[in-house]
């Protein structure tokens, strides 16, 4: 039997090492937590400098003692492998853990403990934390923009209907399955357009007309993102195919289109769509600002989508084209059944990337006077009654955007897994 040697821990006295190591680490974490949460220093009797470094030293020694390979305890092995491979690694891990512990209290106090949510005016916010009252009071505007309060049920209704219709694909019916792609690619967007055109915009069936300038907030973010995503994808797909076409005219037009839209900043495109574009139109021809913006963003993003899809097309081996051709398939059959399904599957991450960028680009439509959620925040923060709460507003917007984008990226991961059939 080996003697206890704390410089070279070994497996024979596993429990002794384990308990003493865990004891030291616990003291280290306890010390940091106490000083972080209760502002007390249990090692104040020590000289300042040592008292400051003590948790790190104790933790490092503790981690050293429990660094025993092949201990047979699953969690210990996992811990050693991931955060405790050597002294440097252990110090780094401890510093990160301490930093997290240290940053929790100020974060919590700003967010929750010292925050205010009661009251209706700025005067209610007396604490040092966040003023959620501001968000609460303005929430309606952040979601619906300048849309009249008594008509907001129209937005709610159309969004609920659209979400409901999106789940049609889950109906388990063999007969219906064949039409699902058609439904999602063609019918669903048409329904969405009709709903938004008649229900949100109004002007028919006895519904009061609400001009698009009054639309805004989160609902506008959704409307713009939704239509841009739907339009830019097929356009981008055709551009990608066009760029690889054998017909010179088609190829040059596609290349020219893609390079033009990729070469200009989105903000200029939006400006052009709103200021320049109407000048080229005949006097009596009217196109709504929102429609122009959606078309502009769609074409802009389509150029990016095209290049992403082209990457997927190029990644396919030539043999796939040969095989499809040798079976007598023409250009469209070959692409629809053989090439595109594989190419699109390859570029799901790239397309998700482009789509996320698109959603996060929507705030730029403020340059043409359309105020989606960030635009409404900017408006609200300059309101004389509510000056000085920009921070809360931006944190709120960040959380909203994060939720939307995280949901989208999760969905794209699921798609990747769903269509993974090989290799």
């Amino acid at each position, binding site marked *: 039997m080996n003697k206890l040697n704390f410089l070279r821990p070994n497996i024979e006295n596993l429990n002794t090492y384990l308990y003493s190591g865990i004891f030291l680490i616990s003291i280290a974490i306890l010390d940091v937590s106490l000083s972080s949460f209760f502002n007390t220093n249990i090692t104040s009797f020590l000289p300042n400098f040592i008292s400051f470094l003590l948790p790190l030293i104790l933790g490092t020694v503790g981690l050293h003692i429990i660094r025993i390979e092949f201990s047979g305890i699953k969690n210990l092995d996992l811990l050693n492998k991931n955060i405790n491979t050597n002294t440097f690694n252990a110090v780094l891990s401890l510093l990160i853990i301490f930093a997290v512990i240290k940053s929790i209290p100020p974060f919590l106090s700003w967010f929750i403990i010292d925050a205010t949510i009661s009251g209706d005016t700025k005067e209610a916010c007396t604490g040092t934390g966040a003023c959620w009252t501001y968000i609460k009071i303005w929430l309606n505007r952040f979601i619906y923009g300048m849309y009249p309060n008594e008509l907001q049920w129209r937005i709610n209704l159309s969004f609920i209907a659209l979400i409901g219709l999106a789940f049609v694909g889950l109906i388990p019916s063999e007969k219906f399955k064949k039409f699902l792609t058609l439904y999602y690619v063609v019918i669903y967007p048409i329904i969405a357009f009709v709903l938004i055109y008649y229900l949100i915009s109004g002007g028919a069936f006895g519904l009061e007309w609400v001009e698009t300038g009054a639309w805004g907030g989160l609902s506008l973010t959704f409307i713009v993102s939704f239509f841009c995503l739907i339009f830019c994808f097929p356009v981008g797909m055709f551009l990608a195919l066009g760029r690889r076409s054998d017909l010179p005219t088609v190829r040059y037009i596609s290349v020219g289109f893609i390079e033009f839209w990729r070469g200009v900043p989105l903000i200029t495109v939006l400006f052009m769509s709103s200021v320049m574009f109407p000048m080229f139109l005949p006097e009596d021809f009217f196109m709504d600002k929102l429609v122009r913006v959606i078309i502009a963003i769609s074409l802009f993003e389509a150029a990016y989508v095209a290049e992403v899809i082209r990457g997927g097309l190029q990644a396919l081996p030539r043999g796939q084209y040969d095989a*499809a051709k*040798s079976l*007598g*398939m*023409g250009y469209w059959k070959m692409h629809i059944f053989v090439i595109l399904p*594989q190419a699109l599957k390859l570029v799901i991450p790239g397309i998700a990337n482009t789509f996320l960028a698109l959603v996060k680009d929507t705030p730029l439509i403020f340059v043409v006077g359309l105020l989606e959620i960030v635009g409404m925040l900017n408006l609200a923060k300059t309101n004389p009654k509510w000056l000085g709460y920009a921070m809360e507003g931006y944190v709120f917007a960040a959380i909203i955007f994060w939720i939307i984008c995280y949901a989208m990226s999760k969905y794209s991961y699921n798609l990747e897994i769903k269509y993974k059939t090989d*290799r």
Partner: protein
Amino acid sequence: MSDPIIKIEGMNKWFGDFQVLKDIDLSVEKNKKIVVCGPSGSGKSTLIRCINRLEEHQKGTIIVDGTELTENTKNIEAIRAEVGMVFQQFNLFPHLSILDNCTLAPIWVKKMPKKDAEELAMKQLEQVQIVDQAQKFPGQLSGGQQQRCAIARALCMEPKIMLFDEPTSALDPEMIKEVLDAMVNLAKAGMTMIVVTHEMGFAKEVADEVIFMDEGMIVEKAETKEFFANPKSDRTKLFLSQIL
């Protein structure tokens, strides 16, 4: 003597400045089995890829089953539908199951009802003995099984001619036999076949004629027995001495 089903006259092909095929004359009668051999880079793959116009020729004529291969896309697609092809790299569609690989072209090119196409596919898969793998995806199969599936896929179009482009070159030695067996069965059933291969055993067993190509030209074309017993040109003799 019946009319040839494939007739190639004075065919030339260039890749840029490099001439890959020089004055190829070849006619293949129905139900004949032709083996094409030769060193790598001699143009044998290009030759059979020209027959279903996966490659374009620049000079001369190719007539397949009475139709001349020209720019006319409709003709090309019609010819491809009745000329099956099997590739060195299998080229199965990895996103479709084995069964769907086989039924895709019959359903969408020949407009066959789905049920009939599946029946036909199962029959062809039975022929090459992978019917039990029908629901799997190509990535889950061994090389030999994939190549047999590729043969079944081509046969599902009920072609009049089958082209094989080095079908066993990418396979492990123990899998070559199962693929060759499938090809021998096909030959015995009377299919017109043009096979590019280095498997001389296969050539001796099934071929009616053997063609030896070098540097883009047909150096020698002879009945199988004649070809192996007394090759005429020195180049053929050298090649045979190295390969046998």
